[in-house]
């Protein structure tokens, strides 16, 4: 009964449609069933290209299966399933349908074999995900959603422009290695970069993700940036510029994350930091580096999802998410605390957890290829991650000072979703060969040798020491209710207020001029008052026939003039 060349986004889209007409337990059952059924289906699909048809004069491939896309598809199924279980308690059709469509679009994009299909799903990702932010139903969320949508759609438009140039150069729309040696390459690169949250284009992420709903953020963190990583891995492996961009991405968010108070925004910054590791890996471009980048994307989806879920659980149960308001929750939310610590340890790359087995691949590759400085930056970033994501998040939410909040553990479905994610983190950490066998290259890499384990353990201990010491001395930036200024301050505050000032000066000058002018004009108008009817008719919005006829005369005259001077 299996239709072998049924693209996996189809069941998700059909599922979203069914959700509209079902309620209660049936809807929950369908939501859980779709990713499971689709994953089983996908498991049986062998590699190779499927489904092609002609559009205009191009060959479109809406469904292409190879190792790279399969790996991402697997993890997206896992993420969708976890996210769906996490949101089972919801009674919100808008969110559930949007999440289903969003997951489907991500799968569509991963299997897109041509730029046009990719563009369609690229925009669908933007349009469907925005509802996960809107569903928070606050004014703040609405504003953030609109900013998010504009930037995402812009990324899509740039992608389309790039595809257009690409088509006219290569006479093909196939999505494979593109490279940076043409306008098309750069346009598409920028489009991917926006979605990948490159520095200066990253604000949509830290702006919108913390404003999304409790469950929405879990979906958001899994798909959008990973699609961009996937696209970069396919189109620009070995582009050296990516190494530097990625290194910057790993480092700069740390400073913001340390002083940020909203814990979900801290996670958003650490998401950029993790994506930075993947981008470095893609930029290095060796088999080991690419493997590392992809494996890290796989793991990041799971442990970042786990962290967002645990913070979402806190927000769901307490209604607060600022570090300064929380604390001491471990007494009443023990399960959440433990699961959150597993996630935090994973992202910090503790040995025997999933982060360790993939992050070290990227770093080894950097060292092998002679990017010593980059290696140092990555090392610094690893320490930073441990700081803000590994310690800060669990510490301020569950320990620190007792905030007096006595919230219990979240509903069972939320705990279950977190438990699945935590189990995966541990399983991959203990038995990484399962993940390695899915990777595109076979490098025979083994993370558990003495150097890796020792280096990482040292790093972690000294980082922890620094935190403890700073905290004891009272030097650690306290959690304050404050607004952290990022680059988006430029376009949200500085440019508007700067413009306002400029305009105020202009207006003042203008007013003085106008006062003088209106005086003169009054005199003139009084003179013309007999003919004022004609004046008002000329200025009225509906154009009188006379003015239309005048335009005809103008156009005819200029046309004749132009043809005679030739």
């Amino acid at each position, binding site marked *: 009964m299996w239709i072998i060349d049924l693209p996996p986004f189809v069941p998700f889209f059909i599922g979203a449609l069914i959700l509209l007409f079902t309620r209660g337990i049936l809807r929950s059952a369908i939501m859980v069933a779709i990713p499971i059924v689709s994953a089983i289906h996908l498991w049986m699909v062998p590699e190779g290209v499927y489904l092609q048809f002609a*559009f*205009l004069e191009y060959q479109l491939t809406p469904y292409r299966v190879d190792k790279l896309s399969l790996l991402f598809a697997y993890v997206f199924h896992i993420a969708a399933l976890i996210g769906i279980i996490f949101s089972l308690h919801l009674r919100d059709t808008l969110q559930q349908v949007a999440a289903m469509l969003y997951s489907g679009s991500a799968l569509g994009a991963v299997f897109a074999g041509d730029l*046009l299909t990719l*563009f*369609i799903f690229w*925009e669908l990702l933007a349009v469907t995900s925005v509802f996960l932010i809107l569903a928070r139903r606050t004014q703040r969320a609405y504003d953030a959603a609109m900013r998010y949508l504009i930037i995402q*759609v812009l990324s899509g*438009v740039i992608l*389309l*422009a790039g595809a*257009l*140039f690409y*088509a*006219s150069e290569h006479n093909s729309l196939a999505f494979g290695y593109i490279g940076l040696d043409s306008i098309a390459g750069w346009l598409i690169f920028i489009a991917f970069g926006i979605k990948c949250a490159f520095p200066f284009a990253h604000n949509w992420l830290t702006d919108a993700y913390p404003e999304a709903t409790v469950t929405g953020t879990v979906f958001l963190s899994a798909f959008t940036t990973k699609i961009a990583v996937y696209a970069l891995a396919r189109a620009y492996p070995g582009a050296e510029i990516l190494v530097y961009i990625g290194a910057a991405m790993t480092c700069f968010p740390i400073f913001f994350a340390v002083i940020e108070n909203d814990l979900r925004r801290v996670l958003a910054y650490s998401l950029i930091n993790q994506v930075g590791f993947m981008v470095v890996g893609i930029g290095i471009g060796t088999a080991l580096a690419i493997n590392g980048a992809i494996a890290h994307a796989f793991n990041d989806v799971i442990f970042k999802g786990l962290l967002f879920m645990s913070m979402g659980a806190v927000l769901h149960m307490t209604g607060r998410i600022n570090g300064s308001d929380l604390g001491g929750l471990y007494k009443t939310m023990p399960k959440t605390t433990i699961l959150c610590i597993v996630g935090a340890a994973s992202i910090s790359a503790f040995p025997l957890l999933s982060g360790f087995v993939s992050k070290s691949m990227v770093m080894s590759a950097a060292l092998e290829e002679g990017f010593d400085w980059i290696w140092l930056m990555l090392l610094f970033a690893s320490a930073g991650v441990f700081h803000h994501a590994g310690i800060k998040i669990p510490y301020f939410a569950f320990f620190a000072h007792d905030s007096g909040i006595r919230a219990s553990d979240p509903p069972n479905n939320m705990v279950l979703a977190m438990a699945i994610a935590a189990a995966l983190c541990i399983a991959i950490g203990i038995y990484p060969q399962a993940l390695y066998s899915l990777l595109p290259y076979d490098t025979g890499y083994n993370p558990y040798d003495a150097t890796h384990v020792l280096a990482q353990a040292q790093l972690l201990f000294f980082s922890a020491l620094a935190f403890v010491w700073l905290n004891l001395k009272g030097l650690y930036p306290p959690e304050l209710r404050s607004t952290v200024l990022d680059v988006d301050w430029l376009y949200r505050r500085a440019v508007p207020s700067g413009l306002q000032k400029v305009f105020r000066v202009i207006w003042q000058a203008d007013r003085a001029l106008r006062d003088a002018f209106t005086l003169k004009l009054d005199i003139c108008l009084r003179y013309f008052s007999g003919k004022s009817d004609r004046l008002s008719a000329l200025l009225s919005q*509906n*154009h009188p*026939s006379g*003015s*239309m*006829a005048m*335009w*005809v005369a*103008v*156009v*005819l005259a200029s*046309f*004749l003039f*132009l*043809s*005679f001077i*030739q």
Partner: protein
Amino acid sequence: MTAHLPILQVIIPLMAAPICLILKRAKLVWLFSLIVSVLAFSVSVLLLQQVMTSGVISYELGGWQAPWGIEYRIDKLNAFVLLIITSISTLVLIAAQASIEKEIPKDKHTLFYVLFLLSLTGMLGIVATGDAFNVFVFLEISSLSAYALIALGKNRRALWASYQYLIMGTIGATFILIGIGLMYQMTGTLNMQDLSQRLPEVAATRTVFVAFAFVTVGLCLKLALFPLHLWLPNAYAFAPSIVTAFFAATATKVAIYLLIRFTFSVFGLSFSFTTIPLQTVFMALGLIGIFVASSTAIYQNNIKHVFAYSSISQIGYMIIGFSLSSVTGLTSTLLHLFNHALMKSAIFLALAAIMFRVGNVQLDNFRGLGRQMPLTMAAIVVGGLSLIGVPLTVGFVSKWYLLTALLEQGWWPIAALVLLASILAVVYVWRIVEVAYFKEPLPDRAPVKEAPLIFLVPIWILVIANVYFGIDTRFSVQVAESAAQSLFGVSL
């Protein structure tokens, strides 16, 4: 019978118009007009088929030989346009009776159909004929009936809009007549093919320059090219909804057809684009038109105004494609001719349905319509997506061809501007979507039901066509491309 198809195309609706007066009863007349339109549609399908397989059809009226008698000449270009006109008229007529019941006084229903058929005759005649003076005659037939049709609108401003259109339309027609007269003076012939052979001999004279200028400006007025578009928004907004749906999809298209016919076939490519700076002028006006009209559309509160201004901006796209004077450019124009007809007729028919239920199309009254008239609003959304140029809709296909044509000649700044202009379309479509789907209905407006089936059927045929021809582009692209190629390959 098949030999007489070219004349049947025009004569069937022409003869049917007076018969309507005899039938009198409105329902009966509606059915009769619908049948006539279906007949005209089947004739145009047969014509297109014939042209595609066996080439140009030349039909001599009354057996008089070509340069002296009137010749009807059907090639791929006009067979394509004939098909667009008749298909739209048929679909629009399905919903006509229900729509005019609420918008036109009972005693004028029969007259409405008479005028409709005459207008249809005029357009078909303009397209089918191969005789320059005949063009003018049919132009007047279609225009005069159009003025009367617009004046039937129930809003009193319809009269004034129709009056303005009358003035401007007449100026346009006069310009065209002056141009044709000057050509006749120089060559002594009115047959287009004959003209195309004799004009090059006298091409260097100022008279021919002036003739070309008059014809072009007259046509630009008719096709509402910026800045000669001012008559159009009010005419479309205050005319009965059905009339708007019909004209928005066909009237300006006919004028664009004539522009292509005169520049490419009659005056010839080398004269139009090398002796005269047509390219610069049209590209500039088209581009300004897109931006001005799209921006104006954003600020309109009458939704018919919104889409009327959007029509003007879409004409800008067609004119840019035309101004490139390349096969791809012209293909994009012809494709957009077809595609825009599909989008705009779907949207304006949906607006007619809203007019039928709600009574007006002010933006405020769209509140809550997303829930109350889901199918109608969905049609507007799909049409709007098509206007923006979203993939999987026809709008994308024609925009893609236009951009390819622009890049082909290295006009990438223009291509960037064209893409930028799509964002303006997003804005004016989004305004409607936001109000219809995300705002609670006005408290003082009674809740309305979904539009009746008689509206939904033609609307959704058009919507499905919008998507179908956006995915399966074989038919439209093939016809448009071969029509464009034949215009460049051999003169008429």
